[in-house]
């Protein structure tokens, strides 16, 4: 690499970082959406009457089965046909968030089932309503159990945010392509820099989730009854 290439590489870093910020914004949006919807889907799958549970299973089947790139196109270009105008950024958050909600729902479903039906029966027997039991007994344990598989989902969706470039979000991958298009010699180094960014974020994210897991660990707490439906 010539001196001018190194100079271009260094000049490009702030631009890449501003792109990475967009990836992080998409990440927080999609994780929040996926978390909220995912928990609801999991609760419906485990606790609601059969027809509703079947609907939730259909939702999960759809959003786990359709490729993310197709979902992005469906949400972004598809909604436009019905005069629903959303920015590429919002479309990315919704498409990737709904996809993540389907995966997250299975993490939470497994965790809720691992807590076991006997705790729900015990909670009901002391006069709690089902919602109270879910809120105060089931979820506090299930969420703890969810952290290890959830960190896997976190790593996965973090990387998925680069897919948003396909519908025109100017995030880090797109910016790297701009820089490559401007100076061909940077094709290899610029994507190495992007790879390092993501390795770093994955490391920090998983470390934080590991710390969260240790912080909320309950000594002696064990899982029972996985796979049951209540």
């Amino acid at each position, binding site marked *: 690499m010539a001196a001018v290439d190194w100079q271009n590489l260094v*000049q490009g870093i702030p631009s890449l970082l501003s792109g990475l910020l967009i990836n992080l914004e998409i990440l927080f949006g999609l994780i929040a959406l996926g978390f909220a919807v995912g928990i609801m889907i999991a609760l419906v799958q485990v606790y609601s009457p059969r027809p509703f549970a079947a609907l939730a299973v259909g939702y999960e089947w759809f959003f786990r089965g359709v490729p993310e790139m197709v979902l992005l196109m469906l949400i972004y270009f598809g909604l436009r046909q019905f005069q629903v105008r959303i920015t590429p*950024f919002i479309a990315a958050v919704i498409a990737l968030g709904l996809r993540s909600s389907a995966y997250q729902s299975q993490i939470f479903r497994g965790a809720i089932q691992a807590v076991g039906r006997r705790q729900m029966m015990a909670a009901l027997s002391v006069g709690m309503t089902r919602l109270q039991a879910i809120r105060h007994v089931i979820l506090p344990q299930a969420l703890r159990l969810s952290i290890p598989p959830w960190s896997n989902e976190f790593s996965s969706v973090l990387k998925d945010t680069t897919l948003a470039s396909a519908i025109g979000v100017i995030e880090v991958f797109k910016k790297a392509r701009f820089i490559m298009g401007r100076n061909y010699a940077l094709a290899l180094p610029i994507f190495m820099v992007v790879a390092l960014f993501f390795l770093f974020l994955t490391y920090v994210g998983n470390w934080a989730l590991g710390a969260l897991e240790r912080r909320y660990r309950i000594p002696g707490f064990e899982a029972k009854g996985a796979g049951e439906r209540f």
Partner: protein
Amino acid sequence: MGRRIAILVLPLFLLGLGAVGAEKYIVASDIPWAPFEWASPEGDYLGFDLDVMRCIAVLMGYEIEIRPVAFDSIIPAVVLGEVDIGASGFTITAKREEVVDFSNPYWLSNQAVLVRRDAVFKAPDDLFCCGHKIGAQRGTTGADWVQSNLVDKGVDVQLVLYETYPEAVLDLVNGRLDAVVQDEPASQQSLSAYPDDLKILGVIETNEYFGFLVASGDPKGLLPKINEGMLKLGLRYDLELPVEGQWKVKFRILPDSPWFYLVQAYFGPPLEKVESAWKACIGTLYDETFAPAERVFNFAKCLAERASG
């Protein structure tokens, strides 16, 4: 917990609504395609097309936002009304005119055939045979030309399509392609990026006119503004006698005009010099102490002087 999620998600939706309500025109351009449009290492969007768009916006009193869109998605985006103007070195073709409307032409281009410097071909005809791989950017007239004049006519070549032009050039340099067909100015730019590796084998006289494009029927009345803006910038037209019933347009650029200086700045000097000139000069375009015409003139002249100086 629920409230915290709402706090996280709500601003995102407001952001989306805000972007929809803004009143300015969105210009879609396929970045990078130097010297017509590219992003500097710092992330500024510059290039001949984009600065012509900026200057016209200043002259005609509207605002623009430049949005990078993949070349083959620009026309769909304009048709769907997602963006207002396509400014990306679009050749005016009858096929495109079925779905969009074009401004007056602003550039005449031909297709150049780019090959590696060590290639044994003496003329384009030597290349167009024997299963050679020819790269082009998807949706461009260069790709169209290879498809309709070679592939469809049974010439033994393989057309390889790329989403961006630089990726095709990269594959040419790395030996995965035998040639790349692309507009002349962009090919010249690749040549100056790779003086030791590439050469232009020949030019195919396609006589293509570039135009800016808007949705069919020009629902926002932009074409008169763009055409008037180009006149004000110093672009004139002479008509030549019709050849095969088609009038041939000849461009005449007024000396000492913004258009003259923009051409001087963007077609010739290396990209680094244009970028540093642009960074130094762009402020003059938005310096409200001057009248719009003066701002545009000062900017173009500043750009040309610093880029070639």
